[in-house]
């Protein structure tokens, strides 16, 4: 693609997310995380470890950059203009954003990561050759490389821990990329049960592990195609559009600082790095500070 072509068709660039055919006909899994409710307790992260057979790498390996957590809670510290420093922290749970035009998918040399008709970003471990190109291209840095042969060499899942491994999830071996899957094993079961009864998955029927464990109910997850879904209602209420790279909230108020509500709007919804045109499926609801009220 030449630069002139790129500039001429800028509005079309990276918008080729699959929406035709079977895509999003029945399901489009999406998430909304209310940062106002998030207390940074890390329960979601712990639940994710348990659900998805993620090994605990330990402090040393973490320091070497061998971190392994599909869900991390990022802490942002902002003491500016604040009387009480303890009010300066805000937390942001970060996991694979399941982008519609995922940057990781286009660069995989083995085709190990693909887009599913449900709008998920699949990762097939036995196809992965560990080039880590996807991780390099991920703007959210939510893909993790498995550096250790955990089930065999490293005795992370020592007896009797293998008994608590989730049989619906592969125990990954060394040399593959892994990431959040929106608990696809639960989605598969829910879809299967629904299909047996000749219907679609209903709202509340399926939960992700992080959503289930969140004590403040900050995470909502569901099918955007379903008009009854809580997540769909939240997206609609915040006027966040899946296929847009700039939302109503941010339109026309460049003069305002990011994160402030001076324009009088009550819209809090945003997606991370929307302008990169990856079209993530996770919407965050901005935290309301006392200064903004």
């Amino acid at each position, binding site marked *: 693609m030449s630069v002139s072509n790129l500039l001429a068709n800028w509005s079309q660039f990276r918008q080729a997310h699959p929406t035709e055919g079977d895509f999003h006909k029945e399901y489009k899994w999406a998430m909304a995380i209310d940062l106002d409710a998030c207390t940074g307790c890390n329960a979601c992260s712990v639940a994710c470890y348990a659900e998805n057979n993620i090994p605990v790498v330990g402090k040393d390996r973490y320091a070497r950059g061998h971190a392994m957590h599909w869900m991390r809670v990022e802490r942002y510290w902002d003491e500016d203009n604040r009387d009480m420093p303890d009010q300066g922290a805000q937390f942001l749970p970060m996991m694979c954003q399941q982008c519609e035009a995922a940057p990781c998918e286009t660069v995989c040399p083995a085709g190990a990561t693909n887009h599913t008709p449900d709008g998920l970003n699949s990762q*097939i471990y036995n196809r992965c050759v560990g080039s880590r190109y996807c991780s390099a291209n991920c703007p959210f840095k939510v893909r993790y490389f498995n550096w250790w042969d955990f089930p065999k060499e490293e005795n992370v899942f020592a007896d009797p821990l293998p008994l608590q491994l989730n049989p619906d999830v*592969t125990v990954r071996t060394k040399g593959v990329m892994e990431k959040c899957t929106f608990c696809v094993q639960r989605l598969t079961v829910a879809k299967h049960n629904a299909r047996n009864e000749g219907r679609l998955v209903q709202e509340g029927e399926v939960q992700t592990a992080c959503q289930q464990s969140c004590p403040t109910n900050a995470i909502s997850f569901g099918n955007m195609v379903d008009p009854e879904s809580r997540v769909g209602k939240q997206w609609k209420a915040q006027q966040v559009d899946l296929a847009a790279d700039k939302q109503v909230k941010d339109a026309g108020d460049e003069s305002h600082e990011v994160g402030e509500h001076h324009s009088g709007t009550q819209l809090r919804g945003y997606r991370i790095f929307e302008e990169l045109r990856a079209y993530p499926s996770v919407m965050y609801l901005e935290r309301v500070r006392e200064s903004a009220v």
Partner: protein
Amino acid sequence: MRHILRLSILLIGLFASSASFSADTLPPVNTADDLGPQVDQPIEFPHNRHAKDMGINCMYCHTYARRAPVAGIPPLQKCMGCHNGIESVKDKPRIKELFKHWEEKKPIAWKKVHDLPDYVRFNHERHVKRFIVQQDKPVQEVCGYCHGDVKEGTVARRQKPLSMGWCVSCHEKAHPTDKTAQATAQGPNDCWQCHK
């Protein structure tokens, strides 16, 4: 001239060595009709007696196939349900072995024949629903798509490769959705449908 001679010797040598190497190391080609490895079961179970001669429905013993992802290996209790009442074969060696296990309250350690890798998810219920319930096809034919002609063998032996390409070859075909409808549909082609 010397160059050509040297090159030809080199080529002949390479060819000979590669030929002998490939003859030694290449595994036999595994096609759909090849038989899988022989799995020695603790009791040689005659599938031919049960499925062919008696005409017992596969799902009578593999009862989970119609309601769960896995078909399940029948418990000893299932065998006894019938064999308690069949006097004519009670003194046959295999049935004696069966009763021995039953009296010792020891399950029979059947071995897996159709063992998929850990990263594969296969749902028996989906396939049973699709072909037996919706399309009304004979049970033994439907089970035979993947398990081969079980009723001809004594112990179950893998007959189909169960490789990804083999699964996909069937998923690419458009099958009728039910016995009367003209509509056809393919199996899913989405990686996360079968991989986990």
